[in-house]
C-alpha cells in the first residue's frame, strides 16, 4: 500500500513538474485560458518533422537536424488590442526575473523586447522573449534540451518566420 501511495505521489509530482516546466505554463496560465489572447503551441513532434527539411548547405542541414530534435515545445502568447502592453511587460519581467538570465534587450519603435534564457549545466533549457508596447504584448517560449539559438535563427530565416531577426548577432558571432 505504501509503495502504491509513494508511486502515485511521485507520478503526480512528475506530471505537475512536466506541466509547469516552461515559463508560460508556470506564470502566465491565466492568459493561456483567456480567449482574447492569441495562443500558439507547437509540440516537439512538429520540430522533428521540420528537421526533415532539405537544406542546400550540408553543415546547415546537420545543424538543423541536430538542434530541432532537441526542441520540446514552443509557445506564443499575445494580444494586440485592448491591452496595456507596457504594464504587462513589467509584470512579466517581475514574475520570471529569478528564473531567467537576460540575454539581450532592445527598444524598437514603440515597444520593448527582452530575450532571456534559462540554463542548466551550461545548456539552454528555455529561451523566453517578452515584448510590450503601448497597445500590444507578446511572449515566446522555446523549451528544449540544449537549445541552439543560432540554429533557431537560421531556421527562422530560412522559412521566413518572423520575430527572430534580433538574434542575428548570434549568427555573426558564430553560435550561442
Amino acid at each position: 500500500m505504501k509503495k502504491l501511495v509513494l508511486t502515485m505521489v511521485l507520478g503526480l509530482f512528475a506530471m505537475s513538474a512536466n506541466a509547469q516546466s516552461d515559463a508560460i505554463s508556470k506564470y502566465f496560465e491565466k492568459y493561456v485560458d483567456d480567449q482574447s489572447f492569441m495562443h500558439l503551441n507547437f509540440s516537439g513532434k512538429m520540430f522533428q518533422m521540420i528537421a526533415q527539411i532539405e537544406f542546400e548547405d550540408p553543415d546547415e542541414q546537420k545543424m538543423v537536424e541536430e538542434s530541432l530534435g532537441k526542441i520540446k515545445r514552443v509557445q506564443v502568447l499575445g494580444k494586440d488590442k485592448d491591452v496595456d502592453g507596457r504594464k504587462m511587460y513589467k509584470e512579466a519581467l517581475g514574475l520570471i526575473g529569478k528564473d531567467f538570465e537576460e540575454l539581450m534587450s532592445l527598444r524598437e519603435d514603440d515597444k520593448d523586447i527582452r530575450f532571456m534564457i534559462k540554463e542548466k549545466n551550461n545548456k539552454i533549457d528555455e529561451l523566453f522573449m517578452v515584448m510590450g508596447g503601448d497597445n500590444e504584448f507578446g511572449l515566446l517560449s522555446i523549451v528544449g534540451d540544449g537549445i541552439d539559438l543560432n540554429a533557431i535563427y537560421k531556421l527562422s530565416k530560412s522559412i521566413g518566420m518572423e520575430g527572430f531577426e534580433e538574434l542575428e548577432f548570434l549568427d555573426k558571432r558564430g553560435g550561442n
Partner: protein
Amino acid sequence: MKKLLILSLLLSMTLSGFAQSRSVERFRQDNRPSTTLFFYKSTLKMISRIDLGALGGADVSEFQDMPPIGDMIKGIEKVKFFLYEDNDDRHRAGKSDFDALRANIEGEGYESMMSARIEGNNMNIMMKERRGKPQGFVVLITMDEGYSIIDIEGYPDVNNIVKFSQFMNSNGSNMGLQEAFR
C-alpha cells in the same frame, strides 16, 4: 472563413499518414455534416489545377506566387473534410461533442502537433505515429460559424510545407494565419 477553409485544406494536404481516424468516421455517422467533401488521388490532381482566385473571397493576385499545389499534394491518398455550421438544423453537434471527439481521437493514439487560437477561433493539428513514422493526421477547427474536421491519408513532404510556409509569410498581410481566421 473561406480563406481559412482553403488554407486549412491546403496545409492539411501537405501532411500525411497511412490511416484515418475511426473516431472521426463514427462522429460523421452520428452527426450529419453541413458539408461533406471527399478527396481521392484523382480529385486531388484536379484540385491542383483549380484557380483559387475563382473560388471567391480572395484577390486572385494573392495566389500568383503560391507554390504549385500539385507538388504539395503529391503522395496524398485521401482527404475527408466535414463542415458543421451552427445554423444548420441537420445536426445537433456542439462544443461538448467536438471536445469529446478530440478526446476520442487522442484515445486512438493521436498527439497534438500544433494548436492555434486566434481571435477566439481554434485549430488543432493531431498526428498518429507508428514506430516513429506518421500514420495519420486530423485537423479540428473551431470558428465563429461552426466546426470543421479534416482527416488525411497520404505521404508527407516537409519541404513542400516549408515552401508553402515561405509563401504564407511573404504574403503576411493577406495570407497569414491571423488573417486567415478573419
